[in-house]
């Protein structure tokens, strides 16, 4: 009794589906483009297709290679796309070319591996005697080439897929004599600080933090435009030191930074040294132990430190952004290690950030901002009224990027509780704070002209051509009040607020993006 060939359906180069086996005698040929033996036999395969009634199917192992093979030999035989190697794996192929002849019931009649001239001649005599081949033009023997599906790295993934296992990432075995931490530094997985070895056990534990399928692709990460699966994100979350409960935040933050609006490609690449600053709102803050009080923007809290770090490591490891490669910050920026904190919503009479941005108060949300420096401290221990303190904050914020650079884009202002109390004394709202900042920072164009003290500002030659009326026009620091994003955080003690300087803002640069955090 003959062995039955596994049925499949693959598409040809035009996208037309082909089902195998057909109800006729057929030939199945697995090949890969860069195999010289496959190249040698391909004209013979074309003749089997064009000069016999055999149904010929030729699954090729790479999409680009299929195209090249078709062009090189002007093939009309259906060349099928097995670039995911699923069929090559299902047929357990070690070597290409592999030919399988099947009868009309799909039972295997014959098979050939590699090229041995007498075998091929006999094969043609048996199945296609009408074809006249000049066998003297062929070499006696050529070995086949290793099937891509047998490559140890790819094979492990294909096997995991076939068995439905949750983990598909390549396994790296570190010799007993090697130090695993040193290995990870050497491989470039680290941001410069030690990382936690992502063993299968740790990654599986990390994946318990989400209901998502480990193979779900949640984003495409530049610059390599690499698919970020939940599994790959979980591996990087392990590296960063995250707990499983924080994984949904990391996933949402990666979704947010990989939007076209946020533009993580530009944020990472810019010489200005921008970095995502992540702000958390909603009930998840308490559940995962986010710090929004003393030292909220600093070190000492695992959730704050590791969520921001996991996002950065994912951009580095999955997306391929590395300093000196496509990451080209002139000075660098400590926020590129990590920057994630939560808003102390309960301490504030104001609408929290996520509600301002259209979410429900009980939604858990992460908002990402592209910021180039911060927090720049606003030291004001003596203002005693809303207008005075908000004015004072404005004077400090005028320094964002450069004191003479007006019509700036986004800035993130973090108001401390003591400052909030001073502003609240006069019932100052977030909008009042924004208006006051814009008011106190407004300068006439005349005051913003570049001069001997600084070349930044309005071009002196352009100013010389302007009317007095135009030169007297006043320009606030920020393009609009809405560019000033305000949250509350910090300890009860200390009249110190802080702000982050933005990067290129708006659709031509980066815009803040908020994502709801889903379990």
């Amino acid at each position, binding site marked *: 009794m003959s062995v039955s060939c596994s049925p499949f359906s693959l598409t040809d180069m035009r996208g037309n589906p082909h089902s195998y086996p057909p109800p006729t005698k057929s030939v199945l040929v697995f090949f890969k483009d860069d195999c010289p033996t496959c190249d040698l036999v391909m004209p013979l395969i074309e003749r089997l297709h064009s000069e016999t009634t055999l149904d010929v199917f030729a699954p090729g192992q790479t999409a680009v290679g299929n195209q090249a093979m078709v062009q090189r030999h002007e093939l009309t035989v259906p060349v099928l796309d097995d670039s995911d190697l699923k069929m090559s794996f299902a047929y357990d192929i070690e070597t290409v070319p592999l030919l399988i002849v099947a009868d009309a019931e799909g039972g295997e009649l014959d098979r050939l591996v590699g090229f041995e001239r007498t075998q091929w001649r006999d094969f043609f005599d048996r199945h296609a005697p009408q074809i006249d081949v000049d066998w003297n033009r062929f070499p006696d023997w050529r070995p086949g080439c290793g099937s891509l599906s047998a490559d140890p*790295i790819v094979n492990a993934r294909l096997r995991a897929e076939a068995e439905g296992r949750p*983990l598909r*990432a*390549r*396994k*790296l*075995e*570190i*010799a*007993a004599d090697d130090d*695993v931490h040193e290995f*990870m530094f050497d491989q470039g*997985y680290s941001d410069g600080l030690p990382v936690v*070895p*992502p*063993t*299968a056990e740790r*990654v599986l534990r990390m994946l318990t933090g989400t209901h998502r399928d480990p193979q779900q692709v949640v984003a495409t*990460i*530049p610059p*390599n435009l*690499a*698919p970020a699966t939940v*599994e*790959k994100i979980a*591996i*990087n979350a392990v*590296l960063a030191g995250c707990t499983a409960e924080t994984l949904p935040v990391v996933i949402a933050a990666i979704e947010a930074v990989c939007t*076209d609006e946020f*533009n993580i*490609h*530009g944020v990472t690449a*810019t*010489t200005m040294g921008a970095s995502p600053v992540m702000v958390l709102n909603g009930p998840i803050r308490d559940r995962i132990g986010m710090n929004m009080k003393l030292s909220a923007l600093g070190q000492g809290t695992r959730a704050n430190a590791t969520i921001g770090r996991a996002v950065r*490591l994912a951009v580095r*490891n*999955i*997306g*391929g952004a590395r300093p000196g490669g496509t990451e080209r910050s002139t000075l660098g920026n400590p926020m590129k290690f990590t920057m994630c904190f939560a808003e102390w919503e309960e301490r504030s009479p104001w609408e929290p950030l996520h509600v301002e941005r259209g979410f429900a108060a009980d939604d858990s949300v992460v908002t990402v901002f592209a910021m180039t420096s911060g927090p720049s401290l606003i030291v004001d221990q003596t203002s005693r009224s809303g207008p005075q303190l908000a004015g004072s904050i404005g004077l400090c914020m005028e320094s964002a990027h450069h004191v003479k650079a007006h019509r700036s884009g986004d800035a993130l202002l973090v108001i401390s509780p003591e400052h909030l109390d001073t502003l609240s004394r006069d019932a100052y709202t977030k909008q009042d704070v924004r208006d006051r900042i814009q008011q106190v920072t407004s300068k006439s164009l005349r005051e913003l002209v570049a001069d001997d003290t600084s070349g930044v500002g309005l071009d002196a030659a352009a100013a010389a051509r302007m009317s007095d009326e135009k030169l007297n026009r006043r320009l606030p620091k920020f393009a609009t009040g809405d560019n000033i994003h305000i949250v509350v955080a910090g300890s009860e003690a200390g009249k110190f607020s802080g702000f982050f300087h933005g990067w*290129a803002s708006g659709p*031509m*640069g*980066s815009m803040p993006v908020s994502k709801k955090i889903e379990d």
Partner: protein
Amino acid sequence: MTTILDPTDERVPVQREITPRPESIKGAVALLDIVKPRGEVLLDRLEELLGERLSAVQINRYRKPTFTKPAPEALREEINAANDFVIEALAD
């Protein structure tokens, strides 16, 4: 022995060979402005000089919508289809 899972995208970058340097400049030259400040000043001057020295060469000017993002696919295809050379004015 410890076994860890690969945190990278596991892809091997495609190796591309640099196109051989041509003997002479013929056909069309694309001048791409990535819209960094004063990039167009440099390209204006280049266009002028190329025009003086290579009068038979056709110069085509292009602009990226923003320097902060990669050039859109359609623009890359357009430049590739219509030109033999590209000169890109990079950062300020």
